[in-house]
């Protein structure tokens, strides 16, 4: 492994008391004040996250729409300009290459936002699938910083720093060249927490300046700098998947329970054949929610059992900071996926009782 990379906000993290760890090859704060305090700040007020580790790829050209539509599971042909769409990229096997956000500027100009740990793999996969499409791919991760401002107070805080009327940026829409504290940014009403909020893209040299300005504007409104620790608990409670947990090359989007982002009525896309078949034959396993009945916290990778027989694995589990319960997501054989089915989680040497519950742990507070 090469040395971990630093984002343009590295010095800001130290200044704000961040506890920096190596995450997907990046030196990023796992927390500042504390995971639970930051989690609660985002749920009740606001939090700012450095998400500059995320990758960005520009796709331009006459056939950009067709190229992306072949690459991803969702139907991006129905997008309007300045819209954002969540989608997944699959292998021909139906397994997942990555999940991503598609930013549409115009019919021939897009940006794809991909996961930090998959940047090289994804870019190679995109290039490998260009074929005869008339498109140009630009990997721009190295010149883009990204800050997420999330929480019910996000709009109020950001509005203090811009003349753009933020209420006019609708959920899963974007606006280019928004001046935040005088610096040009791309702003989208998107996020990974289950709360209202924005993801803001900027040049590296503007990142720390904008971070400081947002902090100043928000600190009296309950805003806290927020680390990767609460980013994961927040996304988990909102049942937003994480690549490497709920999503992987061995898991299809249908098994993961994100079929709503797979448009099998599209003529073609990579992986469609297998997913069509899986849909027709029915799933053999899927990701369910569960709650512990006995003591212990379920964690990623723990085995799921029924009467001592292995029936699956935990994809993510936590003592939920919002719900104060030990809950998780698990991939289980289909016959154990009904609500209220008793299952067991192997927690170290103990086999502990649990039951299947709805995956809707937390009601998302999006502004639609």
């Amino acid at each position, binding site marked *: 492994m090469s040395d971990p990379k630093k984002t343009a906000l590295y010095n800001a993290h130290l200044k704000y008391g961040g506890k920096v760890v190596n995450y997907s090859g990046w030196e990023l704060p796992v*927390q500042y004040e504390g*995971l*639970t305090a930051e989690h609660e700040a985002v749920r009740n007020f606001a939090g700012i996250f450095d998400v500059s580790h995320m990758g960005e790829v520009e796709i331009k050209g006459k056939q950009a729409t067709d190229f992306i539509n072949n690459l991803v599971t969702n139907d991006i042909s129905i997008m309007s300009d300045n819209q954002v769409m969540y989608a997944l990229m699959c292998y021909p096997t139906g397994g997942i290459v990555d999940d991503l956000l598609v930013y549409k500027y115009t019919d021939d100009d897009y940006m794809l936002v991909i996961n930090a740990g998959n940047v090289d793999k994804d870019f190679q996969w995109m290039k490998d699938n260009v074929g005869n499409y008339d498109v140009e791919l630009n990997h721009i991760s190295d010149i883009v910083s990204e800050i997420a401002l999330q929480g019910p107070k996000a709009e109020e805080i950001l509005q203090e720093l811009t003349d753009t009327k933020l209420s006019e940026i609708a959920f899963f829409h974007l606006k280019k060249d928004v001046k935040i504290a005088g610096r040009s940014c791309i702003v989208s009403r998107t996020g990974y927490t289950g709360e209202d909020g924005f993801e803001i893209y900027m040049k590296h040299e503007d990142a720390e300046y904008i971070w400081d300005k947002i902090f100043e504007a928000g600190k009296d409104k309950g805003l806290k700098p927020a680390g990767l620790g609460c980013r994961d608990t927040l996304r988990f409670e909102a049942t937003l998947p994480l690549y490497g947990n709920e999503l992987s090359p061995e898991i299809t989007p249908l098994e993961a329970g994100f079929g709503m982002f797979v448009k099998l009525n599209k003529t073609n896309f990579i992986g469609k054949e297998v997913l069509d078949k899986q849909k027709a034959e029915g799933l053999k396993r899927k990701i369910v929610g569960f709650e512990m009945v006995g*003591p212990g*916290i379920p*964690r990623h990778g723990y085995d799921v059992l029924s009467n001592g027989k292995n029936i699956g694995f935990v994809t993510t589990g*936590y*003592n939920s*900071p919002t719900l104060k319960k030990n809950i998780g997501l698990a991939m289980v054989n289909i016959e154990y996926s009904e609500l209220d089915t008793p299952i067991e989680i192997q927690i*170290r040497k103990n086999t502990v009782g649990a039951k299947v519950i709805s995956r809707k742990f937390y009601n998302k507070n999006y502004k639609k």
Partner: protein
Amino acid sequence: METKTGLLYSNDHEWVRVEGEKAYIGVTDYAQHALGEIVYVELPGIDDELNAGDVFGVIESVKAASDSYLPISGKVLEVNEALSDSPQLINEDPYGSWILSIEITDKDSLDSLMNEQEYIEFCSKEE
């Protein structure tokens, strides 16, 4: 970081309070800071016979589960049941919140532990 006079300390940031043949064991202030907010403690079974270096319990923050290693050999006499309902007591009062008590089976193993001054010095190098 706080320490407490009269306790012995391990490399794994546990404290030991010896009372005759019996020892109370918990985790230090340094450890509770490093662990973050504690949300669950898995306790050992009464009468379990454990060797120095064995895992006697697991302390979990929201983020992760961390094994706790027994610094000296012994037989488990009591576990602090209050931690089952209120694991955050370890954060609030690490030296008042013992996790278990043991009957010391090998007094020599106490020799490998540090006194307060040695432990303060040890922690200063851990940073």
